[in-house]
């Protein structure tokens, strides 16, 4: 077991593509770290550099305090689980799992014992004599995991290990992975596309965009205190709502009405190069049916009225979609996020507002409804740089912060 440190690690391919730029990351011993980001942002490349399958163009990679930039994968003592599983089709499950041990020249008895042990943990004992072709997807996945754990490596690397499974199996395997990692306490770097995996599995999440790290932190922190527009839009499902906001006389003109500003944000906006337009971000759960809000809460937010498009009742609460007029929020980040999620999933900068209201709300489709939202929970972003202006010492402080 060991810690993994990436020190200004970059990768540029021979054709000039810069896939990873100056990534700084310290992964503690035994930590479970998730790399997420849209397709092509350099997650796999980063993982492959840690594995040694891809050369590091510049920067330093240390595993267990030792510089390993120039070491071959076999000398790094880390195991990898591939998205495609990459099982050896000509070998049985037992042989597949024994392969790393045989290469390490262990004696037969030890090999058998270790394979049996790993098979038991992963419930593969009955399948040991089968060939991979005769296994189900979930079983293949477990064999791939088994091959990684048998030799007790310093670290596990996993590149979208669950993305080939169907939804139900994925949930099952997610708990298997999580339990296994806790049991073994092995440092793990896990690449995924899937929000839920990122939020539920890891101790810390690394969000990447275009080869650069955007923010690193525990999942909840990224959710509550996104450092920039990209992180805010990437984390959360349904995603945060983004609205265009024009700065005017110390307040903000938005489609939801004029949003008052606290001193701190106002001071920032008074600077000479301050943006004249902002993007306002609100998560769906920070809205509430105005009728259900008590006076004390009401004071902390503001209200607006809008026509109801669709009501989706989830039992515990209601997702209500509103149409709002006004200019669309636009920024490069938002377009990228929309492209990655597929337009349907990302309400983002459109004229649509997604809200999560209490189940008691009497809201109905086709009506107009008064809705309250929490000003302490809104985020303001600079569309040019994507920076979150409402952060104070890394914590989101809302619009009214003094």
């Amino acid at each position, binding site marked *: 077991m060991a810690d993994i440190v990436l020190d200004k690690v970059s990768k540029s391919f*021979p054709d000039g593509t810069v896939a990873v730029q100056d990534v700084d990351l310290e992964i503690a011993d035994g930590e479970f770290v998730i790399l997420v980001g849209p397709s092509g942002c350099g997650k796999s490349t980063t993982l492959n550099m840690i*594995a*040694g*399958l891809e050369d590091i163009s510049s920067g330093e990679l240390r595993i267990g305090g030792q510089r390993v930039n120039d070491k*071959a*994968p*076999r000398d790094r003592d*880390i*195991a*990898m689980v*591939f998205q*495609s*599983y*990459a*099982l*050896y*089709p*000509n070998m049985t499950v037992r042989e597949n799992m024994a*392969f*790393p041990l045989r*290469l*390490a020249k262990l004696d037969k008895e030890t090999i058998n014992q270790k394979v049996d042990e790993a098979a038991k943990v992963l419930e593969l004992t009955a399948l040991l004599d089968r*060939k*991979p*072709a*005769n*296994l189900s*997807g979930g079983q*293949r996945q477990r064999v791939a995991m088994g*091959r990684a754990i048998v*030799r007790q490596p310093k670290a596990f690397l996993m590149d979208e290990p669950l993305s*080939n499974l169907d939804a139900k199996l994925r949930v099952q395997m997610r708990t298997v992975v999580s339990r296994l990692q806790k049991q073994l306490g092995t440092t793990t770097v896990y690449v995924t596309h899937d929000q839920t995996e990122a939020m539920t599995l890891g101790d810390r999440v690394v969000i990447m965009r275009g080869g650069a790290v955007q923010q690193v932190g525990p999942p909840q922190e990224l959710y509550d205190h996104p450092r920039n527009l990209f992180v805010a839009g990437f984390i959360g499902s349904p995603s945060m709502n983004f609205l265009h906001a024009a700065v005017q006389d110390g307040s903000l003109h938005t489609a939801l009405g004029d949003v008052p500003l606290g001193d701190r944000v106002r001071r920032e906006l008074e600077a000479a190069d301050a943006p004249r337009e902002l993007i306002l971000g609100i998560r769906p759960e920070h809205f509430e049916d105005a009728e259900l809000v008590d006076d004390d809460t009401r004071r902390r937010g503001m209200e607006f009225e809008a026509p109801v498009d669709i009501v989706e009742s989830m039992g515990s609460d209601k997702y209500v979609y509103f149409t709002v007029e006004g200019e669309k929020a636009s920024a490069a980040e938002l377009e990228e996020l929309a492209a990655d999620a597929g337009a349907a999933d990302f309400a983002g900068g459109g004229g649509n507002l997604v809200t999560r209201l209490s189940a008691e709300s009497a809201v109905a489709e086709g009506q107009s409804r008064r809705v309250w939202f929490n000003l302490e929970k809104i985020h303001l972003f600079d569309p040019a740089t994507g920076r979150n202006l409402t952060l104070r010492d890394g914590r989101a402080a809302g619009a009214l912060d003094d």
Partner: protein
Amino acid sequence: MATGTETTTRAKLRWGLLDVLVVVFALVPVLWIASLSFKTPATLTDGKFIPREWTLDNYKTIFDTDQFVRALVNSIGIALIATLIAVVLGAMAAYAISRLDFPGKKLLVGVSLLIAMFPQVSLVSPLFEIERQLGLFDTWPGLILPYITFALPLAIYTLSAFFKQIPWDLEKAAKMDGATQGQAFRRVIAPLAAPGLFTTAILVFIFCWNDFLFAITLTSTERARTVPVALSFFTGESQFEDPTGAICAAAVVITVPIILFVLFFQRRIVSGLTSGAVKG
């Protein structure tokens, strides 16, 4: 459903008939030669498909002549050695071509294609001169070398197609599991490429075995003369005897190793050997 099965049975019947037709068309000449080889000189020209009098005399004749046995040994030896070398070299080249991006890759592929397309007839005379100068004329290496040259493009093409089918990830996985590049190739890639290796071996062997042009130009005695050439030199016991029966027997004999070779290797060409390696 009913119409569905009906059409499939009818389609099957149609295809079956077509298959039989093709097989008969292809096999009749071969069977005819086989039939001739069992006929006595007297009935040779009677035009009957099934010999009236069966005889093994023709086979006895050819195996009695030292000429033919020698040629058979030459053929087998030369073809096997050439096949082995071509497949090993071809496998290495094909592996590099399918896996690595190196400068001059396109050139290498282009040149090997060029060799494959080059008319062999135009090379025969220069080769004859060169081999005489080098002392390779009428020796085994004198035939093995050109065979390798012309078999290599074929080997590289078939093999790189096979290597490309093997998922990259398997090799990466092997490396992560602690294998060196060599171990990864030997223990993971080569076993999976086995069907490709055998297919290529069959093709190259057949090419060497059947060659007449090089064999007749680059040999002069029994030292290196292969069967196809030896056949053309067949004469009867006396000048006036017709060697047709013996030639047919020899033709049957030289077809047998090819059939054996193909049957032997075909059992190893298990399709779908890589299935289960990766999802989808």
